[in-house]
């Protein structure tokens, strides 16, 4: 188990990789959204997450003793070295799936960053202070859409309900108390994932009810292992796309 600076670095990778990989997925929506306003909104959310990722990966590289830059960490790590959860890795689905994913992820990030504002690491704390506002906007955006889709047409109701089901297997992992997070929490740097659970579920549950939907909870399997580098099958394909050009020109500046 890493300690001190390397613990903080490891923890920054958790946060940074979630943000980076979800930004990558959201970027796929640009020019493919249901209306132009949504191309902009999803692009904006992706940009916020990318900004968080850049700050956090830079911090990880500063603290882990390797002197790696944000780009070294984004483009030259292999799949097993990424620390993102399966939820953000899932391939782009329909718009209902994206809103279900965003609702959960942004609500989780709201609680997470609210807790991290008091992190002992000044960079984590500064990122959190900015990100807590961003994620509130992301959450509100998702909430509005879940209400519209849940309480819209018969078709949208069914699709939104199916989407809540589709993201369900990936939720528990957000609240797993992995070793790094536990250590970071007790070092005053991070937040304990399990401590965020109730507030997130309550908030999402409330939106779901107002959207005339029901919160599914029966699940025969659940994702595990993102924080120790065990990823969804789609992750390698995502990385191939993301890293190909950078890796094709080692040592180049852009």
């Amino acid at each position, binding site marked *: 188990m890493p300690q001190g600076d390397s613990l903080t670095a490891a923890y920054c990778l958790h946060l940074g990789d979630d943000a*980076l990989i979800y930004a*990558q997925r959201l*970027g*796929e929506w*640009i*020019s*493919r*959204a*249901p*209306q*132009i*306003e*949504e*191309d*902009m909104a999803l*692009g*904006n959310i*992706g*940009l916020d997450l*990318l*900004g968080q*990722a*850049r700050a956090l*990966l830079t911090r990880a590289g500063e603290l882990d003793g390797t002197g790696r830059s*944000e*780009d070294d960490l*984004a*483009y030259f790590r292999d799949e097993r070295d990424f620390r993102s959860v399966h939820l953000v890795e899932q391939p782009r689905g*329909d*718009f*209902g799936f994206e809103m279900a994913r965003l609702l959960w992820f942004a609500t989780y990030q709201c609680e997470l960053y609210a807790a991290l504002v008091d992190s002992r690491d000044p960079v984590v704390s500064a990122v959190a202070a900015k990100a807590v506002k961003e994620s509130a906007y992301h959450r509100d955006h998702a909430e509005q859409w879940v*209400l*519209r*889709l849940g*309480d*819209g*047409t018969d*078709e*949208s109701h069914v*699709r939104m309900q199916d989407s809540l089901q589709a993201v369900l297997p990936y939720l528990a992992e957000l609240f797993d108390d992995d070793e790094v997070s536990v250590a970071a929490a007790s070092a005053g740097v991070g937040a304990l994932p399990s401590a965020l659970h109730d507030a997130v579920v309550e908030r999402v549950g409330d939106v779901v009810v107002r959207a005339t939907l029901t919160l599914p909870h029966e699940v025969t399997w659940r994702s595990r292992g993102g924080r120790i580098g065990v990823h969804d099958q789609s992750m390698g394909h995502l990385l191939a*796309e*993301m890293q*190909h*050009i*950078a890796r094709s*020109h080692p*040592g*180049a*500046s*852009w």
Partner: protein
Amino acid sequence: MLPTATERRTTPGSFDELIAAEQRIEPRDEMPEAYRTTLIRQIAQHAHSEIIGMQPEGSWISRAPSLRRKAILMAKVQDEAGHGLYLYSAAETLGVDRSELLDKLHSGRQKYSSIFNYPTATWADVGAIGWLVDGAAIMNQVPLCRCSYGPYARAMIRVCKEESFHQRQGFEILWTLARGTDAQRAMAQDAADRWWWPALMMFGPPDSGEAASGGHTEQSMAWGIKRFSNDDLRQKFVDMTVPQAQKLGLSLPDPDLRWNDERGHYDFGAIDWDELWRVIKGDGPMNAARISHRRRAHDEGAWVREAASAYADKTAARAKGAVA
């Protein structure tokens, strides 16, 4: 059709007076039907170009070679969506609505700029689009900030501000590549070679000679929609861009390109108008792909838009019920 002399009424505040006085026409003002339809067509084509223009660069968001460049590119493509929105709104002040215009785009009844029918083969293309395509667009658009139709002019002011930012970013991408590895330099030169002529074609056919488009330009000029001829704008673009290419250290693929001291302008070679007409008529490399990408997004989002409007109706009905 040109307005006849008798149509040019001179009652105070009339269309002709406003135009003559270089005043803005606003949505509430009377205006000739031909002016209205010309503007709708032009603004819609412009809006469509922004929306379709998201694709060639958008294809590189997932592969941008640094996170900083990825962020800049995402923001840029997002700006293009924003430009599309301003412009559709400007068109809507003329009594059409966005979904109608999008239908016309999707069915091929309205055009978008042919430049977006070329594929983006390398990362350097993202730079070349910013430098050359946005550069040419600005050249076309700056005069539109003084266009006679108020909402269009105001939209263009916002658009131009962002476009010149994009143009600088594109230049900066190529600047970095041109000072990079051999492979990066080759990539930058290749992109300049491929985008130069299509960029020149963005100004449209020549104003005189065999390939000229006839009275179109003249009418638009009289109406204060157009301020400069295609050839004048093209020349301005060449004059501005050649020194930039020199600064970048990139050559341009035209052996006839040289400074003419007498004219005070750069001379340049003959444009392959056949290519332009072919691309305009829909025979561009990416024509079908661009439209089908756009149509697919629209079709796949239909259920979402329907839900949003059903929800808005329900909410309005509930609010009414609550009031009543």
